Structure formats: structure tokens, C-alpha cells
């Protein structure tokens, strides 16, 4: 157990190192003088001189990386040029909104995706299976910003049941918050549900033909118990691991969903930063998402390890 933990943690360090190089390298892509580009459209010579000193632009690249990485390790992701606020504060400020959105989306995706996956595996080659596969194809092929627009058209403009956009804090008005978040959560969860459905289906099909499932059936257990208790429990293991890998796409999806529904979260932060040429915010957001993603995958691996006794040996 300990050895596995150490080995798994050891692979993270080089990965994070290369992530940091990649993100630091983004800055080098800026055409021309980075100080001029980072200063925005005003080209104020004072700002440029300040940035030049601040980012050590007169020093070689590896030294600049060193200064930058040292800051990152101390939790300093730089400062927003536009809002004059530390990037870390900005991220932490927007994070709760996105966490709520993503959690709701995950719940929706699990409810629809896993159930559809079970249904299609149990009723393989029937109309149910066919319908579940169509549902998955729909989920994988619909651009979520378009789905968002269509839902706004139907539920906000035509029926007037839900607000078209905007955000209310759950601490101020829980009902209003849920009304504003349900459509975006559904949009965001849509493609993730499709991914989960496909994984659940193939895992269930594999498990359902296993010997112990046949034994459970042979001893006369109810089909419902066989499927939900014996088969599903084992089938969910790979679904969790693969689901964690799909989480990255969910994070990417928040960018579009938050833009369509004007939700002031993490995704909106990166889009606004891109248009304000606020490059340190862009770098900070990418670095932060990558770290979250790596951590989640580590946790998924640990969960896999814990629920699978054969791995412990």
C-alpha cells in the first residue's frame, strides 16, 4: 500500500514540472516584447518598465522560469493586469460558483449516464439499448453552447419557467440559485452523461458475463439484486477511474456553459482574461485546472486501489 502510494506520488512531480514548463512556455508564444504585450493596449512606458523589472525580462529564460516557479510554489500566480488583484484571489473568489455548477452537472450526469448504461447493458440489443446508444451519441455530438441556447429559447423565452441567465448566490436565495443553475448544470452534464453511459455499458457487459454473476443467478437471486448488488458494484470501479479522466472535459465545458448563461465562475474568468489580454490570469487558471485534474486522478487511483482488494497485495 505504502509502496504504491509513494510510486504514484512520484509520477506526479515530473508531471507537474512539465505542466509548469508548458504554462510558462505559453508566455513565450506572445509575439514581440512580452512586456509590451502584457501591458495591454495602452503601451504606457511606465507600465512596460515596471513589467520588465517585475518579470525579470532582461534575464535569461531559465532564470525567469525559476522566479515564476518559485512564486507559484508560494501560492503566487501573479497579478491581474486589469483588475490589479492577485490571480490566486481571483480564482478562489470564482471557484465556489464553478464547484457548485460542476457538482450539479456530475450528479445529473451520473443519474442519467449510469442508469442509461445499466439499462442498455441489461437489455442489450433491444430498443432500450438502441435508445440509450442514441442518447450517448446525442450527448457526444451536441455542442454544449448550442444546447444552452436551445434550452434558453424553450424554458426562458417560450415557457418563461427559468431565468435566461445570471447568477444568484445560494446564501441569498437558494430557490433562485437553483432556478438559475439547473439549465447550465444540465447542459454541462449532458456530454459527461454520454461518456459515463458508454463506460458503464461496456463495464456492465463485461461483468454480467462473469462467472460469479452466473452463480448468483444460478442460486436463484432476483435479477434486480444480481444486477444492482453483484454486477454494478464491480462495474463501477472502472467507471470511476474513467470518469475522473472525463472530468477534464467537464472543466473545459464550464468555459462555454458559463459564457452562454453569464455565470460569473471560473470559466468566465478565463474568457474575460483572454479578451482583456490578462495573460497571467490565463496562465493561473490553466495551472490551477491542471493541478485539480491531476489531484482528482490521483484520488480516483487511490479509490480504485482501496475498493479493489487484488491491488493491495
Amino acid at each position, binding site marked *: 500500500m505504502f509502496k504504491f502510494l509513494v510510486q504514484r506520488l512520484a509520477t506526479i512531480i515530473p*508531471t507537474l*514540472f512539465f505542466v509548469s514548463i508548458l504554462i510558462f512556455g505559453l508566455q513565450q*508564444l506572445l509575439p514581440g516584447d512580452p512586456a509590451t504585450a502584457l501591458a495591454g493596449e495602452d503601451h504606457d512606458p511606465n507600465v512596460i518598465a515596471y513589467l520588465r523589472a517585475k518579470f525579470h525580462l532582461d534575464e535569461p529564460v531559465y532564470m525567469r522560469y525559476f522566479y515564476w516557479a518559485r512564486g507559484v510554489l508560494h501560492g503566487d500566480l501573479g497579478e491581474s493586469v486589469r483588475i490589479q488583484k492577485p490571480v490566486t484571489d481571483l480564482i478562489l473568489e470564482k471557484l465556489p460558483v464553478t464547484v457548485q455548477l460542476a457538482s450539479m452537472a456530475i450528479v445529473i450526469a451520473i443519474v442519467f449516464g449510469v442508469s442509461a448504461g445499466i439499462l442498455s447493458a441489461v437489455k442489450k440489443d433491444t430498443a432500450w439499448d438502441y435508445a440509450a446508444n442514441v442518447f450517448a451519441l446525442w450527448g457526444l455530438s*451536441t455542442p454544449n453552447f448550442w444546447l444552452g441556447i436551445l434550452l434558453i429559447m424553450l424554458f426562458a*423565452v417560450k415557457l418563461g419557467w427559468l431565468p435566461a441567465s445570471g447568477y444568484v448566490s445560494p446564501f441569498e436565495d437558494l430557490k433562485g440559485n437553483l432556478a438559475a443553475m439547473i439549465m447550465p448544470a444540465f447542459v454541462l452534464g449532458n456530454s459527461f452523461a454520454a461518456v459515463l453511459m458508454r463506460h458503464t455499458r461496456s463495464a456492465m457487459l463485461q461483468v454480467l458475463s462473469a462467472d460469479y454473476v452466473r452463480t448468483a443467478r444460478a442460486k436463484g437471486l432476483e435479477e434486480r439484486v444480481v444486477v444492482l448488488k453483484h454486477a454494478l458494484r464491480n462495474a463501477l470501479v472502472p467507471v470511476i477511474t474513467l470518469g475522473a479522466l472525463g472530468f477534464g472535459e467537464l472543466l*473545459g465545458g464550464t468555459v462555454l456553459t458559463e459564457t452562454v448563461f453569464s455565470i460569473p465562475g471560473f470559466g468566465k474568468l478565463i474568457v474575460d482574461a483572454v479578451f482583456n489580454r490578462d495573460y497571467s490570469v*490565463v496562465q493561473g487558471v490553466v495551472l490551477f485546472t491542471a493541478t485539480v*485534474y491531476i489531484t482528482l486522478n490521483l484520488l480516483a487511483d487511490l479509490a480504485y486501489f482501496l475498493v479493489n482488494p487484488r491491488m493491495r497485495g
Partner: protein
Amino acid sequence: MAAVLTATDALPRELTPAQRALRRLARRRGAMVGLGCVVFFVLLALFAPWVAPHDPLATSWSAVRQAPSAHYLFGTDEIGRDVLSRVIWGTRASLLAGLVSVCISLALGVPVGLAAGYLGGWVDALISRITDAMLACPFLILAIALAAFLGPSLTNAMIAIGISATPIFVRLTRAQVLAVKVEDYVEAARAVGNSHLRIALRHILPNVVAPLIVQATLAIAAAVIAEASLSFLGLGQQPPAPSWGSMLNTAKNYIDNAPWMSVWPGLSIFLLVLSFNLLGDGLRDAFDPRHK
């Protein structure tokens, strides 16, 4: 592939694995529908100047936000341009972005994956860690960041998407090469004295092509969505040139009084992506009958 073809000539009745896979593919209705739609969109893109009923850039202040009619089948947009013509011309940006960015991913990912899998050792360790690092940044967020730093344009969007999708191909190629390089025929090729480069290119590469084709087809679908997403955010095709993503970006401001502006470009993205997904799924089943 030349070696495969000579083998077929010698045994005319026996089908090559590739031919058998194509036959299986032809029997899959979903894949054939997907292929048909892809061909339709390709033709639409190629013949856009002749098919489009109006100039996609021509504005008309007397025809602003007109509902679909006999004259404007899909209606007009906020400055009186014909939505149908813009959708038809927009096919070019989407298809081009899908194909070019996947070609970039293949051109970068396959040689690197081949090197990692074949050479092993520290080369593999280094490449694998870099791949992990790239995969840790969510595809779309990495593409947005790259496009933001490169500057907004269709070309830069394609480069950004291509680079962001590269690690998937590195990983896939590497895994396939690891499986193939222990096969007897590779061992035999080595025993005969072939150079490493020749073994990698002539004996290993042809045997890892099938899963790459499947992945490339599915990656085109993802790239089309990614290009539309970047254009929707303003980082892809720049106005006034038509692209489905940027059309939706404008359309979202007119949801209540001109819904047709959002319906058609979105439906086109959906259909094109669905077609590539259907074709990709079909190819996967055809190349690997055990799947499903």
C-alpha cells in the same frame, strides 16, 4: 502498405484484413449514414460558391432579422445577411479546422509516440511525462490558452486544437507500438538485419494504423466542436467571414426575436460532429470485431 498489396496479388481470393474491415464497415448502417453525411458536407464546402443562394457577406438593411421565407430559406441575421448562405460557407471553416488540426496532431503525435514505444528507456520516460503534463490540462482550456497567446484567427485556432489533441495520439501510438514490437515478425525483421528506422516505419507503423484511423475520425468530431467553441468565444474565424461558432455567438443576443439565427448553425455543427462520431464508431467496430 506496399507489402500488403503484393500479398493480395499473389492470393487473389483471400481478402486482406483491411478489405475485411471495409466490408464489415459497409454493413453498418450508422457508419454508412455518417459517411454519407460527411461526403455531403465535403461537397457543400467544395461547391459553396455555386450552392449558396446569396453572397454570405452581403448585408441588406431592408432585410434585417427576417424570418425564414421562400427568398431566405433559413432567414437573415442582424445585418440582413442570408443565414443559409453563411451556413453553407461556414462548412468550409469547420471541415478545414477538423481536418487540418487532426493532421497536425497526427504529424506530431505519431512519430513521437513511435519513438517512445520503440526506443523505450529514458526517451519513453521523458515523452510519457510530457504527454501526462499535456493531458492534465483539459483539452478545451489548453486550446483556449494557446489560441489566446497565439492571437485569434482560424489558422491559430487550428494550431491550438492540433497541439492540444496531440498527446492522445502520442499515447495511442505508443501503446500500440509496445504491443506490436514483441511480435515474431518484428523480431524476424530485426534478425534479418533491418535498421531500426526501417523496422519502425515498414514493419511496426503499418500494423498500428487501424486504431489511429479510428481515433483520428473521432478526433475530427472533437476538433469540429473545439473550432466552433473557439469561434463562439471569438478566438477562431474572425468576422465577417462565416463560421458556425461565430454565427452562434452573435445569435445568442437575438434568442428571443430571431431564434432561426441560432437553430441552423448549431444544427449543422451537431450533424457534422454526429456524422464523424458515427463513422468513427463504425470504423472501430469494423477494425476490432471483439468490441461491442
